[in-house]
């Protein structure tokens, strides 16, 4: 040993012991510290795993709608989003229903149908739900289980009707008994009840034929595979449906499997609709519905040259939809995109804008008797994003929907956990520093 070593030893020996914790305490403290470190490490691993799992496509998309609250159960959400920005690439669902909302959105450059699950609030594009012929009608059954839409192949011609069961994930193509080789011109499409869909259409006489009013067929199909049957329907049920191309199914189609003459199916666009009652004299009016009480009638249509698509109301007489009193009244200065249905004897639910078609579209509840309009939610980027709602849910309160986060909830939870760990670490560091 050198002299320096000896000097150091002497120096070390001079220091007086100050005392400290005994070995048992140190052992306990060490065990606690080790357990704490293991817990923190485990939490960090879990957070990391959650983050990694969340980044993958296995995670669910943001849950937009809060769980349905008792006692009302599922309802129509008060907010409908255009999903492509945040819906994961594989968000095609075979079992997605029953639906509260049926809507349309761009997917991979194509317009496709998507639905919102009435219970979970999940958004799902329907398999093979691309709307190959834009503007063709789609219909959602009153209970939200079945979606009926025209399917086509070349972007111009519809060839068959498709009914998709959102609960089982099965779809069936329904074709007219005497299939037309040129395809069809889609007309009105509506659900008579939860089992039967009715459609009106014209058969094309050539590949380029776009003329309405030549063959006028009305058929019904059952979801159990029955049909086509001759339409034997209540006028009240089919009278007020319209096709987006403007054809109008009027009340006297009852028992007509094949309509014989033009009065039963109307072409509204560019036509004079002065036949059968002055209500139809509405210029370019192409849609009307009568309330369940039969005392009110509304029309969705242009009020004149250059006018916007408005919500117009009128009193009916004696429950006869063709007899009216008073003038048509413009309700709430609305720019209507889609008429979704009657919420009560006096009020309707529509999508659109009020006063001017600017910004995002809204959901409005309009009292057609008093003329009062209340904004009740958001309806997507355009007024016609929402195509239909499950009419059984119309009278229930709207369900509060959360705004989309754009982030997978697993990522959000992982970040929350990571933040918590960071705060814990900061707290421990601060305490240790304070102790010193």
């Amino acid at each position, binding site marked *: 040993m050198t*002299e320096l*070593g000896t000097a*150091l*030893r002497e120096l070390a020996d001079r*220091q007086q012991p100050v005392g400290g914790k005994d070995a*048992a305490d140190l052992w306990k403290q*060490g065990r606690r510290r080790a357990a704490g470190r293991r817990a923190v490490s485990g939490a960090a691993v879990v957070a990391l795993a959650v983050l990694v799992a969340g980044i993958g496509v296995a995670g669910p998309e943001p849950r937009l709608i809060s769980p349905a609250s008792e006692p009302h159960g599922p309802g129509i959400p008060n907010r409908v989003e255009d999903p492509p920005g945040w819906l994961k690439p594989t968000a095609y669902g075979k079992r997605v229903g029953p639906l509260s909302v049926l809507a349309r959105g761009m997917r991979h450059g194509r317009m496709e149908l998507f639905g919102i699950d009435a219970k979970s609030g999940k958004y799902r594009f329907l398999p093979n739900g691309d709307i190959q012929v834009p503007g063709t009608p789609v219909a959602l059954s009153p209970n939200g289980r079945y979606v009926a839409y025209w399917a086509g192949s070349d972007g111009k011609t519809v060839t068959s009707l498709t009914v998709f069961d959102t609960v089982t994930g099965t779809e069936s193509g329904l074709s007219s008994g005497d299939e037309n080789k040129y395809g069809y011109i889609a007309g009105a499409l509506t659900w008579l009840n939860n089992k039967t869909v009715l459609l009106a259409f014209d058969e094309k006489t050539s590949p380029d034929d776009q003329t309405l009013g030549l063959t006028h067929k009305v058929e019904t199909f059952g979801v159990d595979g029955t049909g086509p049957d001759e339409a034997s329907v209540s006028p009240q049920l089919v009278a007020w449906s319209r096709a987006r191309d403007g054809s109008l199914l009027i009340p006297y189609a009852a028992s007509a499997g094949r309509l014989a003459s033009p009065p039963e199916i109307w072409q509204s666009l560019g036509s004079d609709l002065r036949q059968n009652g002055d209500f139809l004299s509405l210029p370019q009016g192409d849609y009307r519905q009568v309330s369940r009480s039969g005392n009110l009638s509304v029309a969705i249509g242009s009020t004149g040259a250059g006018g916007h698509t408005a919500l117009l109301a009128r009193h009916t007489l004696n429950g006869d939809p063709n007899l009216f009193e008073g003038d048509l009244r413009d309700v709430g200065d609305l720019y209507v995109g889609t008429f979704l249905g009657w919420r009560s004897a006096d009020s309707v639910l529509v999508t659109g804008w009020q006063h001017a078609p600017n910004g995002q579209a809204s959901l409005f509840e309009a009292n057609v008797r008093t003329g009062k309009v209340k904004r009740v939610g958001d309806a997507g980027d355009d007024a016609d994003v929402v195509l239909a709602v499950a009419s059984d849910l119309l009278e229930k309160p709207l369900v509060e929907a959360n705004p989309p986060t754009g982030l997978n909830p697993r990522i959000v939870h992982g970040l929350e956990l990571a933040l918590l760990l960071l705060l814990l670490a900061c707290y421990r560091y601060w305490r240790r520093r304070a102790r010193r």
Partner: protein
Amino acid sequence: MRGVDLEGSFTEYVVARRAALVRTAYLLCGDAHLAEDLVQGALIKAVAHWRKIGDNPEPWLRRVMVNDHISGWRKHRGRERLTDTMPERAAQAVQELGLAEALRLLPPRQRAVIVLRYYEDLTERETAVALSVSIGTVKSQHADAVRRLRELVPTLAANQIGV
């Protein structure tokens, strides 16, 4: 080793070697209370690793004490520190400094090299392992430390330091 055996072995080691560890720690930091904290901190950390290091815990504990001391010095560098010596002592001529004060004026890594080499009698290689640095670094730190000590404590002759 099972849990009870581990605790027994730990207790046995602490009882036997704690005083020696505290002395080493005192030389490293120059403060008795800080030395006790260093040793306790190292022993608490050692509990989680006792299964692995229990047979020969000394090198591991020494490394932890040195690293903790250097980390603490970095954190508190520039801050005021309470010592049991009067501030006026710092103004005294370097010739009058004792070894303890001289050690205190060395940077912690140089101090650690001196303590490990001359107090613990470690080789350069063992010192390098204890400090987690290369042998070259140990050599250079040692040379700098010795030069500084000679300046601070001229009474320590070159042959006493052993270089």
